[in-house]
């Protein structure tokens, strides 16, 4: 028997109640629209050569946005490369997200409690555990949450992080978006376990499986796990079951490894449409409001792209400036050498 049933709010009656206000649900919806518009815009920019390789979160908007809504600003977000949506909700300005896609900066903004997106898979889960230890030690009422994918559960660092978290009983959440694929590897070739959530059991921590395309359920599950962690009742591994509707990145060609039939079946579960229909039923959303949201999103994104593209070329010195807090003279010398060359 599967002991990790998929938790839902929408579509299935009474499984879970949504505890927050419907206004929150509407805000979540609005940011999901924004994220979709952002990804579509960035894919276009990539084709035009205006940004580099980019990992869209098409189809994962509920998991990205609603999970971040469940956090408080003093919580630490520890993201990976596909989590610009969650970072935006947590406070990262849209301009920074674009700068990151343009290879002009790390995805970091001062004052936002989020680490730069981790590229080496699963390595950052350990940082979340360490951050949670520091929060606990300093009696801060906050948690750390790491974002990662199904593929990450195969790396040693995933297992080490869950184990430490269990031993230390620190306020950390592991938010795993099971989007069905790790580039070309389907989940059933990634693990012989029936679910990813059940891996929590081996480390003596809680595991929850949530419908990752049900924004309200994602919000609810993260919120509850967060409460539990803050109360000192330990970490949780959350498996958000979703689907990567687009390519892994702009460098990927998914037709090499999956059928359009499979994609169609899953995109019928589109999280934006699902939440939209729910909000319409609740009388909170109208067609006009939806169209307004889409227009606003596009406008905000275009403005941000405009601002970023109006910035001049990068300064060679910025490559050196932050390698150490105090630059050793040997590197200062290199900086000068490079600076001189840049004026040639």
């Amino acid at each position, binding site marked *: 028997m599967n002991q990790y049933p998929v938790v839902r709010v929408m579509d299935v009656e009474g499984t879970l109640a949504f505890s927050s206000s419907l206004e929150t649900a509407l805000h979540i919806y609005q940011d999901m629209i924004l994220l979709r518009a952002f990804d579509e815009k960035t894919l276009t920019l990539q084709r035009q050569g205006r940004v*580099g*390789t980019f990992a869209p979160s098409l189809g994962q908007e509920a998991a990205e946005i609603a999970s971040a809504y469940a956090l408080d600003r003093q919580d630490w977000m520890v993201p990976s490369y596909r989590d610009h949506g969650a970072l935006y909700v947590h406070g990262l300005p849209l301009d920074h997200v674009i700068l990151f896609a343009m290879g002009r900066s790390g995805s970091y903004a001062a004052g936002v409690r989020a680490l730069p997106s981790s590229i080496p898979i699963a390595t950052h889960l350990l940082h979340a555990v360490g951050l949670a230890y520091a929060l606990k030690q300093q009696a801060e009422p906050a948690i750390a949450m790491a974002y990662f994918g199904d593929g990450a559960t195969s790396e040693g660092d995933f297992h080490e992080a869950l184990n430490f978290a269990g031993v230390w009983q620190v306020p950390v959440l592991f938010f795993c978006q099971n989007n069905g694929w790790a580039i070309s590897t389907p989940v059933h070739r990634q693990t012989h376990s029936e679910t990813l959530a059940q891996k929590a059991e081996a480390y003596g921590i809680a595991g929850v499986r949530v419908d990752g395309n049900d924004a309200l359920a994602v919000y609810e599950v993260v919120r509850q796990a967060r409460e539990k962690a803050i109360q000192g009742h330990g970490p949780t591994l959350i498996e958000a079951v979703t689907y990567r509707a687009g390519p892994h990145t702009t460098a990927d060609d998914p037709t090499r490894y999956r059928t359009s039939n499979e994609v169609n079946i899953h995109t019928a579960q589109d999280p934006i449409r699902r939440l939209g229909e729910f909000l319409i039923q609740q009388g909170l959303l109208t067609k006009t409001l939806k169209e307004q949201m889409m227009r606003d999103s596009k406008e905000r994104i275009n403005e941000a792209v405009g601002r970023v593209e109006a910035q001049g070329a990068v300064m060679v010195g910025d490559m050196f400036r932050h390698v150490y807090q105090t630059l050793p003279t040997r*590197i200062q010398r290199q900086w000068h050498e490079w600076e001189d060359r840049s004026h040639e």
Partner: protein
Amino acid sequence: MSEKNMVEALHDTLSQMMQHDPRLVLLGEDIGVNGGVFRVTDQLLTQFGSDRVIDTPLAESAIVGTALGMAIGGLRPVCEIQFLGFLYPALDQLISHVSRIRARSAGALGAALVIRAPFGGGIRAPEQHADSAEGYLTTIPGLKVAIPSSPADAKGLLIAAIEDEDPVVLLEPIRLYRLGREEVPDTLYRVPLGTARIVQPGRDVSVITYGAMVPLARAAATQLQQRYGWDVEIVDVRSLSPLDEETLGQSVRKTGRAVIVHEAPLTGGFGAEILATVTEQAFWWLKAPIVRVTGPDVPFPPYAWEDWYVPNVSRIAHAIGQVMAEE
């Protein structure tokens, strides 16, 4: 004989070697159904089946660690690490086990395995996809490290690596994967590990380099030949470990001047080893201090800075000018 780019040369060689030696197995992330993110293993799954072309779960330490077990057990594994920057989780396996199993078993056991990994910058890749980590690998005794700069060498080095009884890391410059085509013989031939190649002979100065820097060195040499009539010799190291001290020494004893070029950061980079070796071999013949052209001592930056970071033709030409200016 046919014209191939480096990806095609590597692909066809793997296919040929798989037919030639039934012990060969390929393992890595996305190498089967997807044919590898750079398509080096395209269609090999269809050709050889999933027992021999293994799409692994996402874990580099497991890829290298299981490959060692396979090798000891009688197979010949060829691992693909998706990008060199993702080899790091497997360094423990490489350093603690793969490289020293022969020494620890007094010669009884060996790690006849190959690790292939694309590396280096120049294609506007995301962060941490462009590291040049060859220097760390050459510090590991027991391991061999080779880097091709042409399709034909890629074939010869890959075959030599596969046939070697000891572990070999073959680093493939991403920027050269599809840069140009050349004639690649159909026969199974080897580029012996431990041999450098004189890309073009010259009298005035030796440019010692490898990988994606070789075409840049050639362009600089052509420029300087036309402008000043300087006769530049280019040495492609291609086997970093073991290193061909003899060819390097001979070249610099002839020219009396040397410029060393690599993309990795300066400090502790492989250029330091080349410089020390050349100094040992040719000190009394030197007419000028040796100059290194490398990446700066900073982590490989986001790609907007890439063109600043990676050495280019003008930096190489400038360095050659520097050593030529000395009497």
